[in-house]
């Protein structure tokens, strides 16, 4: 438990993705089975202990501690698990090993669990107790996703992460076959019939230089829909809906899952579609990051999938086929199956590059971010192979906004104020935040902005500085949408700094009504 506790602690505070991967890798490479496998399961959220709940822990603490002292402490710390971990009166140096905890809870009956947990807490120090409590109550939130753990495993085993993704969903804790393979002691564990996620093919952004180099006749064009990429996996036995990061989101989209009465693996875009019209991304956001969706939510935000590729048909792996051949298979399958809640992403006919360019600019009117261009002969390859798929986003919209708040960045930017909140003027002459941006400036501009912020701070709220409302930035963004999350009532998609407008007085920055005008009408 000590090593696991230290790992959790470091992950929680580590600012960068590479740091987290290095920490995970060092842990997996140095810890024995089955401990490392259980740690991986904890990060994957694959463990559940029905007998151990927050209330159990609270009761245990209450029995061992003066109520007033507990209340004063909780008030100071602000987090229940942390308070219990810190305040626990006993101290031990022999915390239970991770496997002992997991196997202990699995075999104990429910009445025995509180006493078991109490004995573990007595044997632990504060860090181990914190890890234990977080593990038991399922609130691990360690700041490291399963994806990072897989990247760490790939580095450790010197394999491509897509190989791990390919087999991951056929595996179970404590993943001994996986570690054994990564350490070269056995063959790759194969998923067999299981409904596993298949690593997705990704597109390169089309830069101006690429435009001239591309032979347009070899490409097929589609809209770049503004939803989330999903993979549908349906076999005779099971069905799953995955994000492009292999996160299983089946539970939140039951109405889609019910329709998967076929045997295929499909690639597509999840969208809110009302009466055949694609709704803005903010509508889809109402359905994301939820465990389940109520009937009301399903009615108000009806989802559908725009299909654009096929990976498996009836158990046959068709990924090696060309795009055109796969498209033919997809169309044939679609005509035969007629799946509910699904449409085929239309291929957009074009005869010249100029025609494509104008189609790309028109994309805004159809809730699309631009165009996707796919080489007709490209097989379906995991990752981002060069020159096969392109995303050609339309030119960004822009507006002038005033810097309101700033916060320091992380890692290499930890001494710079690099994260900004921008506002525009309301009709009443008040500034309201519309966007946060962390990128788009040069190093030189960052130096200037940082210096400016330090010299023009008028207020501090913890790590946040409020600045004089005088510095104007031109912001680029992909689209503007209505939002109930922000005071301004609008949200910008993918905002970034285009340039500094030191020449512009703050009073000439854009107004909220200008932003509202950019929101497409439904």
């Amino acid at each position, binding site marked *: 438990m000590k090593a696991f506790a*230290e790992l959790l*602690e*470091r992950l*929680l*505070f*580590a*600012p960068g993705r590479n*740091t987290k991967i*290095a*920490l995970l890798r*060092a842990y997996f490479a140095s810890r024995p089975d089955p401990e490392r496998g259980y740690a991986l399961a904890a990060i994957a959220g694959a463990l559940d202990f029905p007998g151990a709940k927050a209330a159990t822990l609270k009761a245990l603490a209450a029995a061992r*501690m*003066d109520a*007033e*002292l*507990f209340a*004063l*402490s909780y008030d*100071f*710390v*602000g*987090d229940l698990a*942390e*308070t219990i971990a*810190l*305040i626990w*009166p006993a*101290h031990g140096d022999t915390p239970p090993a991770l496997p002992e905890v997991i196997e202990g809870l699995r075999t104990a009956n429910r009445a025995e669990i509180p006493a078991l947990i109490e004995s573990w807490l007595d044997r632990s*120090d*504060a*860090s181990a107790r914190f890890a234990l409590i977080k593990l038991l109550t399922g609130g691990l939130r360690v700041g490291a996703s399963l994806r990072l753990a897989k990247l760490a495993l790939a580095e450790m085993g010197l394999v491509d992460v897509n190989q791990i993704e390919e087999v991951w969903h056929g595996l179970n804790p404590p993943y001994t076959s996986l570690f054994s393979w990564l350490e070269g002691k056995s063959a790759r564990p194969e998923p067999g019939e299981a409904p596993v996620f298949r690593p997705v093919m990704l597109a390169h952004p089309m830069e101006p230089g690429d435009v001239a180099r591309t032979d347009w006749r070899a490409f097929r064009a589609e809209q770049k829909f503004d939803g989330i990429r999903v993979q549908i996996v349906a076999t005779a036995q099971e069905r799953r809906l995955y994000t492009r990061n292999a996160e299983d989101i089946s539970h939140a989209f039951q109405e889609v899952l019910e329709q998967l009465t076929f045997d295929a693996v499909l690639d597509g875009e999840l969208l809110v579609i009302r009466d055949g019209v694609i709704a803005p991304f903010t509508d889809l956001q109402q359905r994301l990051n939820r465990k389940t969706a109520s009937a009301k939510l399903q009615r108000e935000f009806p989802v559908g999938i725009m299909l654009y590729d096929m990976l498996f048909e009836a158990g046959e792996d068709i990924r090696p086929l060309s795009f055109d051949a796969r498209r033919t298979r997809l169309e044939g399958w679609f005509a035969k199956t007629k799946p509910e809640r699904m449409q085929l992403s239309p291929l957009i006919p074009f005869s010249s590059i100029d025609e494509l360019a104008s189609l790309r600019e028109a994309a805004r009117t159809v809730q699309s971010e631009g165009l996707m261009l796919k080489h007709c002969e490209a097989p379906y390859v995991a990752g981002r192979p060069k020159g096969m798929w392109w995303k050609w986003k339309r030119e960004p919209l822009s507006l002038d906004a005033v810097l309101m708040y700033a916060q*320091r960045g*992380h*890692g*290499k930017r*930890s*001494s710079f104020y690099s994260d900004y909140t921008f506002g525009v003027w309301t009709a009443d002459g008040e500034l309201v935040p519309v966007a946060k941006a962390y990128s788009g400036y040069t190093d030189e501009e960052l130096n200037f902005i940082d210096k400016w912020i330090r010299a023009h701070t008028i207020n501090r709220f*913890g*790590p946040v500085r409020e600045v004089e409302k005088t510095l104007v930035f031109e912001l680029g963004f992909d689209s503007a949408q209505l939002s109930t999350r922000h005071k301004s009532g609008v949200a910008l998609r993918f905002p970034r700094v285009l340039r500094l407008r030191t020449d512009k007085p703050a009073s000439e920055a854009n107004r909220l009504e200008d932003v509202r005008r950019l929101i497409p009408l439904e």
Partner: protein
Amino acid sequence: MVPHPENWLNPTPSGLYCRPGDFYIDPVRVVPRAVITHGHSDHARPGHEHVLATPETLAIMRARMGEERAGKILQPAVYHQPIKVNDVTVRLVPAGHVLGSAQIVLDYKGSRAVISGDYKRQADPTCAPFEPVRCDVFITEATFGLPVFRHPDPAEELRKLLRSHALFPERTHVVGAYSLGKSQRLIASLRQLGYDAPIYLHGAHANLCALYQSLGIDLGDLRPATVAQKAQLKGAMVLAPPSAIGERWGRRLEDPVVAQASGWMRIRQRAKAAGVELPLIISDHADWDGLLATIKETQASEVWVTHGAEEALIRACGLLQIRARALSLIGYGEEEE
């Protein structure tokens, strides 16, 4: 009839005042006669007429304030030496907080009060360990006076730092630490753990480390971080005041792992808010168990709590059947941890 300390020792706006001795302890305003527990700037302030303190504390005051401002008359008192000040006998006893730190033991007509100053019970290679003194009234600090504060073994915390250094050999490990006491303790402890590579220092640390070394504390190979080439700091161990790391000074560091050594690092949100990647729970103050153990060891029938989280400590004394009250002194606990 033995007088109760509340009749001869009182809080005033200038600080705690001993009437029969006519002196103040750690006064926050300029006074004719001051007794100083230790060199931190919230306790040792400039400009007093007459200052009584340990030779080390006086040396620290001179170094930080300059000869002039440290006081007109500086009277050194070695630990345990009884000194008669008017009708009161004053003795300075090690407090284990920083080099030269002392508890003030006051005897007046058979009644004894002990003012702890800031203190800790953990071992510290740079200063004499705390010695409990039996007394009638114990006046204690309570910086970490909540049961959530129980400091772990500092050597284990530093091993975390060394493990991180081994795991990320390319990155500069910069430890935010208070420049007086904490910095030297960390360096000496790292040396004890076998870390003998050069340690690079922010200017604020360099002066005080030099002073410690002149007072006989060995800190090994120390170098200025300020003039070092950026490439030289790659993979180096650097000490700096926490406030400097997030400022422009920190830009000389190569992809730094930002650590901070403080008792406050126990609380995750505090560490997060400070932008710390590697919190090290190393404190120069007594933790909760240390406060309670000390109170018991002094066998005081009454405890006055000066600064920090008084409420919980007073509650805990109540549970131990010890009379306790808050002594509302202001102006302390501002400088460090």
